[in-house]
């Protein structure tokens, strides 16, 4: 019987992780996977409209990073944000209802898939402007520092954002002002249809960050445990004031950029190869190899996840649309604070 506390090979340093926690990680990733699959179905039935960017394949990054955060830490996502939102703990009901455009949605149905907000969870939304959120995250970290708060600000972005001016301006400001911020680059290889190799002279994003003086390195974005341990390490260093860091997570999206994507820019076998080392498959294989996950347990987890998703759909379908007369609510704040 292997000891309960199993040592997981986690990159530079080994951290202590118990089996229950690993199963929790597995379930979190599965929640995201099944949620995204159901969203694809609902989109083809025209229940979800607008743009839909699925996180399938990158689940380990969101789940891993979020384990290192405290409730009062702040998160800035991207438009591929369902995984970030669910991993951060937003209710699946509200996220699904948001995509149905209902008033019970996380943003009263006004934002849709790309603009999920939940201030109680310190989740400051997706942002449909590539790199648009980077300066915001820097600003929030500046505010935390000015108010002597020990919170960490995490800012997710894809490797595509690296080409925007805001990436340069934000990393410089973060290091210049020694701000408590963790930049997380989800390097999935493609900015919509543009491979990294044909858009960036320096393809190792963490090296760019090092040039600004940030602590930065890359991890296997498919290994949720490695992501979690790296994130914890950086968050601890940020909390004791060592300044901003950047974590590059090498990962891959198994679906198109969005739903209307013929994926002419990449080969099918490349997708299959990455799928073979997908984050859920990898962890499931490890758990089964170590007799930590029985077939029944798996079915039980699948059923729990399916029930949560189905309840979310019922909640969303049953919710009201926002009253047209409330259109002006929130254009301006009413009260003088």
């Amino acid at each position, binding site marked *: 019987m292997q000891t309960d506390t199993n040592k997981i090979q986690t990159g530079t340093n080994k951290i202590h992780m118990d089996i229950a926690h690993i199963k929790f990680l597995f379930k979190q990733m599965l929640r995201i996977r099944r949620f995204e699959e159901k969203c694809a179905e609902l989109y083809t039935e025209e229940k979800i409209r607008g743009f839909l960017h699925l996180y399938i394949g990158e689940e380990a990054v969101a789940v891993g990073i979020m384990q290192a955060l405290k409730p009062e830490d*702040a998160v800035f996502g991207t438009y591929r944000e369902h995984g970030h939102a669910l991993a951060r703990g937003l209710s699946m009901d509200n996220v699904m209802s948001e995509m149905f455009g209902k008033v019970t*949605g*996380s*943003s*009263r*149905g*006004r*934002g849709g898939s790309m*603009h999920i*907000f*939940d*201030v109680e969870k310190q989740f*400051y*939304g997706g*942002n*449909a*402007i590539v790199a*648009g959120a*980077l*300066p*915001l*995250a*820097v*600003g*929030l*970290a*500046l*505010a*935390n520092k*000015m*108010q002597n708060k020990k919170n960490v600000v995490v800012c997710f972005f894809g490797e595509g954002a690296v080409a925007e*001016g*805001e990436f*340069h*301006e*934000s990393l*410089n*400001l973060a290091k*210049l*002002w020694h701000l408590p911020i963790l930049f997380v680059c989800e390097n999935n290889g493609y900015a919509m249809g543009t491979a990294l190799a044909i858009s960036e002279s320096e393809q190792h994003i963490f090296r760019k960050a090092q040039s600004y003086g940030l602590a930065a390195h890359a991890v296997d974005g498919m290994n949720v445990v490695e992501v979690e341990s790296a994130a914890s390490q950086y968050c601890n260093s940020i909390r004791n004031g060592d300044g901003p860091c950047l974590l590059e997570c090498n990962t891959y999206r198994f679906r198109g950029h969005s739903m209307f994507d013929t994926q002419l820019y990449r080969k099918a076998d490349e997708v299959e190869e990455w799928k073979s080392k997908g984050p859920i498959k990898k962890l499931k294989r490890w758990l089964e190899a170590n007799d930590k996950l029985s077939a029944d347990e798996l079915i039980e987890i699948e059923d729990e996840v399916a029930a949560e998703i189905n309840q979310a759909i019922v909640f969303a379908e049953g919710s009201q649309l926002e009253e047209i007369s409330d259109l002006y*609510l*929130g*254009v*301006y*704040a009413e*009260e*003088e*604070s």
Partner: protein
Amino acid sequence: MINQSLTYREALRIAIEEAMNADERVVLLGEDVGNYGGCYAVSKGLSETFGSNRIIDTPLSESGFVGAGIGAAIGGMRPIVEIMTVNFSLLALDQIVNNAATIRHMSGNQVSIPLVIRMATGAGKQLAAQHSHSLENWYAHVPGIKVLAPATVADARYMLGMALKDPNPVMFFEHVMLYNESATTPAPEDCPDMCSAIVRKIGTDISLVTYGGSLPKALEAARQLAQQDVSVEVIDLRSLRPLDTDTLFRSVEKTHRLLVVDEGWRTGSLAGELCALVAENCFWSLDAPPIRVCSEEVPIPYPKHLEDAVTPQVAKIVEAVLGLLKQEIVS
């Protein structure tokens, strides 16, 4: 020294100092606001008083530091972000429009963004096309932000404090030709609030509506017209969003005529919006078509004689008013 005088620039500095003393959440970010003392010397001396933690010199990264200001406001601060001039604000337009103006509404009224973004605007100092824009109307087009254009020393002195207390993002435009204007030290009652227009001169024959740097020209034109027995009512908008339409309509219903003076280019200008509002709401009181004096639709030229020919001047305003009053029935 009972009523010594105060310049528009000094009024702004006192306002910032007062706000920062009153509330430690108020900080000033911007290019050269610290050691250099501000490119228009508004923040001169402040970094000695408050230190570099609250008077923060930023790199030349408009999108970066304006976005940071917005993020800091989300994080509970009350930042004043100084963009050197409206011309450079174009680099931060995405942060202002897609984040500052949008997030509260798009997040379902959850996120609050209380900040003031100040910048110089307008022509008149021969800085040529790239440094002489008047683009207030671009921002006044966007719901979710407020846009102010203080034209007097009193408004400069007291509007900034009010803007900082407002929980919404507020754009604050300071016309370059106003910085040296001086007046006797204003009292709080000279600036009743931040969003209503003020009738600077009562009149009966025509309503002359303007804002910001054009106010002195409008008042001078009104003075000259008075000598020709034409009674002009001069209205200072002060706020470009929201617009105080009550004061506008009341005046036009009295005078039956409207002339708007706006340093922006005529096409798509704020003046166009005002004429549309009056045509929609005061049609039955109009006795002449609402007209505008705006800048000629050319990039603002460097040489003085051309710059003056392009931008609204007193003579143009007087001529427009007289033209309107003498206008026979248009066939």
